[in-house]
Each structure stands twice: as C-alpha cells, then as structure tokens.
C-alpha cells in the first residue's frame, strides 16, 4: 500500500436475537455513533462511507441508499460492497484502499445484519445454483457435517473435540458484553444438544444475531495526530473459491484450498515463518465448530491433523499461548454481514488492550483475522500495534 492505514476507532452494538426497538438504520447508527465517539470524531470529518450488506438477506435492494441518515453518508462519497459472509472484511479492505490511495484521509466502514427481519432459510437456499442444488435447500448444515465426519475419519478426532470448541466460544462470549450467546455450558451440554446433521449439533452452529459494527480508518498522519492507540492494517488478502467444487470439507483433499492459499499469501507478504508465534491473537470466522479446528491447521498454527489437539490441550483458550476468538467468535455472535468486520474490530481491541473482560492476558502486538463466506471464500487481515 502506498500509505499506511490505521484503525483509529470502532464500535459495535450489543448483539441479540431480537431488536424490535430499532429499525435497520437505527441499529447500524448505534455502532456508527460508538465508532465516532471512540475516534473522538464528528461525522463531518469523515471523507467517505462504505456500507457492507447482502441485499437478499433483509430483502432490501439498495440498503446503502436507505441508510444515508443513520450512516452519515448523506452528501458524502461512498460505496456498497456485497461479497457474502466475507463482506465485512472486504469492506475494511475497500476502506484501506480508499485511504491508501491518498484521496481519502478518514473513511467510515459500516457492516450490519438484522437477521430477524429477513427470511434466512429461503435466502440461504438461494446461494445454490438455481438448477443445481437449490431444490435441496438447507444443505449448509450438511456441508459442515460432512466436514466434521471427514475430519474425524481422517485424523481420529472425536465429537468431544468439536464440543470443546463449542464450549470455549460460549464461555469466552460470557466475558464479552456485546456477545449474543453467553452460555455457561459444558462439554456434556454441547454433546447433548439437539442433533441437526451428524455430527453437527445445535451448539456446534452459530446463532442468528442482530447487530452492527463500524470502523474508522485513517492515514498515518491523521492516525498519529488524532489517535492515542492506532492499530495498523499491515496486510490484506482475499481468496474466493469456484462455484461448485467445495473441497474444504474433505480433510485429505490434495487440491489447493482457499484458506491455505490465502494464509500462505498473507504470510509471504509479511514474512511470517511461524504464525503461532508471529501473531499474538487470532479472530477467525467459524460458522461451525469443525471449521475452527480446520482453520487452526489451514492457518498453520499446527500440523495437518493436529488441530483437535490444540483445542484438547487448551492452547487456543483465552489464556492459552495461541488465543483464538477470545470474543466468542461467530459461534457466539453471527450477524452475517457484520461478522467479518467484527473479527477485525475485536482483533484491534485486543491490540489496543481495550477488549475488557475478554482481553487476553498477554501483550498483543500482532493479530490475524479471517473471514469466511460465499462458496468457501476467505479474506484475511493482519493488524499490528506498531509500524515496525
């Protein structure tokens, strides 16, 4: 990038299954006001507003145009970005491009989802090709189920391992005042939750949440003048995947996988040799428990086939050596359009030391976030405390 880009502020709503007290615009506005307050900035100082959302989810065609009052975009430049579950992170990339271009100094990135308003079941079936699989609506859970069964068959992991991920997420969420599913559950509870699609149970899946996240990105000069704790965006990488071949679920596939390709590119950009040492915290996009275990391996935090050992040994706990999703992650809070941006914002909070109850108990200088969406798409963002 031609200019350094920093996160100089951010905010999120609290997340819940019901938000009847606000409409979509008002809910999003809550996060934006928090972001502006956090950056000690007024909306007048913002040069552009970028909105991320997928129009089908709430059944609104031009959401960005509807939001202009609440988003502060009225009379300002801006774009709407729409790339699946990754969209919140894609919008951060778009914001970083805006700032790095030299044409904008302060850019507001906005992401939201009010899942209770849309018809998520109908809309998710629309992800499939109209003539190839759309009539099999609901197969997303089946996809993660096959991933779990393939993983267990390949490496000898047990259902208990996915339950450990389910518990870690919800126990971490209890420390995060903004999280949705703050559940005091045990491994037994997870294993006894309702079976959806073997081996995926209710507690192996993310909830349907309402919520929003907003972040303010700025150039180096603004960041240093205006912000006590800027968090620097050091690298971004995107890897989408083709429409029909979804090999991520096959634990022993020999084909190149989006997540590994994306990770190896961002590591190359940064010169990372040992990601588990290089980064102090990870915020990853795990719509189902098994994906978290697979992410460990794809991110190179352990060898292939050893992901379940990390969770078993507590390595990725909030106080472990490789903390993953201290916020509770997507398993605890999934407002789809905002989930990927929340990963970036939560990682920034960790670097600032401002995560509160779920701050990891060690120095955080670098963090890596992942986003997941579409037909196995990833966006990764690497953040740091200093520019060294």
């Amino acid at each position, binding site marked *: 990038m031609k200019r350094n880009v920093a996160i100089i502020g951010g905010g999120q709503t609290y997340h819940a299954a019901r938000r009847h007290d606000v409409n979509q615009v008002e809910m999003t506005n809550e996060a934006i006001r928090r972001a502006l307050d956090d950056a000690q900035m007024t909306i007048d100082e913002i040069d552009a507003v970028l909105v991320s959302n997928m129009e089908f989810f709430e059944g609104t065609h031009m959401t960005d145009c509807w939001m202009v009052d609440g988003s502060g975009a009225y*009379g300002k430049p801006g774009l709407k970005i729409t790339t699946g579950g990754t969209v919140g992170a894609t919008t951060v990339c778009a914001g970083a491009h805006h700032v790095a271009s030299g044409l904008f100094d302060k850019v507001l990135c906005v992401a939201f989802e009010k899942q209770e308003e849309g018809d998520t079941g109908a809309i998710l079936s629309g992800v499939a090709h109209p003539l190839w699989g759309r009539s099999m609506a609901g197969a997303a859970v089946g996809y993660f189920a096959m991933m779990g069964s393939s993983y267990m068959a390949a490496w000898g992991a047990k259902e208990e391992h996915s339950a450990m991920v389910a518990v870690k997420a919800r126990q971490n969420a209890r420390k995060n005042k903004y999280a949705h599913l703050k559940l005091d559950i045990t491994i037994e509870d997870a294993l006894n939750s309702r079976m959806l699609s073997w081996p995926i149970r209710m507690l192996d899946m993310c909830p349907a949440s309402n919520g929003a996240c907003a972040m303010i990105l700025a150039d180096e000069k603004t960041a240093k003048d205006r912000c006590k704790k800027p968090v620097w965006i050091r690298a971004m990488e995107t890897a989408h995947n083709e429409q029909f071949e979804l090999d991520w679920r096959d634990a022993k596939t020999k084909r190149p996988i989006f997540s590994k390709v994306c990770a190896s590119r961002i590591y190359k950009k940064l010169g990372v040799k040992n990601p588990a040492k290089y980064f102090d915290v990870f915020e990853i996009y795990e719509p189902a428990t098994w994906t978290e275990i697979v992410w460990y391996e794809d991110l190179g935090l352990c060898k292939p086939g050893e992901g379940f050992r990390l969770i078993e040994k507590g390595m990725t706990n909030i106080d472990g050596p490789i903390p993953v999703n201290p916020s509770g992650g997507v398993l605890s809070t999934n407002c789809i359009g905002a989930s990927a941006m929340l990963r970036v914002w939560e990682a920034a909070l960790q670097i600032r030391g401002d995560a509160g109850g779920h701050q990891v108990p060690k120095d955080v200088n670098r963090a890596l976030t992942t986003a997941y969406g579409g037909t196995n798409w990833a966006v990764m963002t690497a953040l740091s405390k200093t520019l060294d």
Partner: protein
Amino acid sequence: MSDRVAIVGIAQTKFASKRAEVSYGELSYEVIEQVLKDTGLVMERDIDNSISCSHDIWDGQTISDIGITDVIGGHLRNEEKVAMDGTNMVLYGAIGILSGEFECSLLMAHTKMSQTNRNIVNNDAFDPIYSRLLGFDYTSAAALQAKRYMYKYGITQEQCAKVVSKNLANARLNPSAHNMGEYSVGDVLSSPVVASPIHELEIAPDTDGAVAMILASEKKAKEITDNPVWILGFSNCYDAHYLGDRDLADYMSLHKAARKAYNMAGVKNPRREIDVVELCDAFSYQELLWSEGLGLCGQGEGGRLLDSGATALKGKIPINPSGGLLSGVPENVAGLNRAAEAYLQVKGEAGEHQVGDVRIAVVQGHSGFCGQHHCVVVLGKE
C-alpha cells in the same frame, strides 16, 4: 494526481432484449474472454484482482458473484463485488490501483433484466417501513421527479421526447445497441403513457448484456498499450433516501460528485473543456436534469441546451452519442457501458458514432431511484 490509472481495454456484448441461451455466468464470460484477447493479457499472469457489479435481487442468486467467480478469475484469487451502478467500479478499481495494492484490475458488470420483473426488483429499493407497501418502483418514482422538474423549470414534454429522438437516432450508428430508430417527437409522445408524464419510448428498455474493462497503473498501462485512456478524475455522492426528502428537481449529489471529479481532473470550465458526455438516461428527462447537474448548463436549462443542438452527435457537447441507456443497456451495467463508450470516444474508436477528436470525456451513473447516489468519472487522452 501523481500516480495515474488507465483504461487499457474494454469489451461489450451486443445488447439484446433477451439472451435465453446463456446463463449470466456465460454471458459474463463473453466479455471477459474478449477483453483478455484484445489486450493480450493473461488472467493468472496479468490480472491482480477482479471487481464485479450486479445485484443479488436482479440475478436471483444470493451472493450473486458466486455465479461469476469461475469466469472472472475469482478462484483462489481476489474478487470483490460492488452492488451499485457500474460507474462505481471504475472509481473503486482506480482507487485500488492508486492504493498500490494492485497493478492491473479486471472489471465486469452483467445483468439479465429479461429474467425477472424490474418493477418488483426495484420495489425492494424502497424502505420497507414507510414506502414499499405503496408499491413504488423506479418508473413511478421517476415520473414524480419528471413532473416536478418540468413544473419547476418549465421543461416541456417535447424536450423530453427530443432526447429519445436524438438518442435512438444515435443508436443506429452503434453496433452494440438494440433499441434504435427514427422517431419524431410526435412518435414518442404518441407512445402509451406509462406513468405520466413518462411515455413508453422514454424508458430504457429491458436488456441483457455485460461489459468488461481492464484498468492498469501507469507503468503497467504503458507496457500494454501505446495509447491508454487515462482516468483523470472521479467522485461519487449519496443523496437522501425518501422521495419527499428533497426537491426532486435538484441534484445536490450529482453536483457534488461532478465538482470533485472535475477538480481532480483539472477541469475548470466543464462547458468549454468537455468534448463528450455519456450519462445514464434511464428515463428521457434524466438526460436533461443530469446535464444540469454535470454543470453543462445552468439550473433549469437542460431543455434549452438540448434545443440548441449542442448535445447532438456533432454538437458542441455531444451527450450519449452511443444512444445512451435508451438504446438498451441493462441496469447496473449502465455506468460501465457509459465508461466503455467514453473510452472508445477518447480512443477515436467509436466508429460511426465517433463525435470527433475527444480530449476529455465525462461519464455519469446513478444508483437507486431518482438519482439517490451519483458517480462521475472523467476520462482523457493525457
């Protein structure tokens, strides 16, 4: 700006009212294959990232860039989607290159309007709490804007109809167009009233098609071609959402976007310096209203500018020599097609609808109803 971004190639489908034989992915590949062939670029070697433009609700596909990932080179690579008018892709593509992240970007917009009902799709662009149940769509909203505009500034039905005569005559010279012909003002005004004061011939027809474009950094552009077309300036701007929030005859957001784009491009006097304009005439009156917003004439003078003949194919500031949207360009693709046409004009490759020597070309696109968001791009030779 010290760093520059160029357009190094474009490809367009022949626009048609219906392309029943291809999926939108296959339609998109027609232009992607063509633009790579024309520029001699290779996807894995030369293209750093791809940006697509369409809308899920138009495509009938949740996260509709899924349907073009394969053909746009998105597999294990960078693809992003801008769900707005296509002009915004040119803007965002240029920003990506200026950021230093990318050297060479592939842009592609596609939409098959024939596969659904535009009024149902566009009804969803109205806020669900106060407006949508009333049944508005872009045509009825445009009619409210047209009426207000005509009332406030004395624009006549004949002037609006004349836009149609001019653009559909221009379209006869454009091989990509599908809606064209010799229509008198009388012909236009005797076509059925769809939503007063808008007649059937004053509405851009349903169209299927796609446009692709390749942007490159200055260094890369000079490796690819001897005469790239430079993106000299751009900006975009949001206006209010609700129909009643603003005087629909005004154009705050277009004015702001145009002013910033001109500043960036060093255009001081748009009326004198601009050689050709391609703008989004989704409805006839919009060509007049947007020409005011672009500063080509004073407020309320859009009709007079047209009457003066300045916007004719061989006029002083030709507008839509391609035939514009009235000649048949899909929604979403609209603005990228404007930019592609402006590119051809600057290159001097527009063929029969070439307006003469073009140094500065201006492109306008709008998203939402009644121009809720405008984007302006300035292209040029140097």
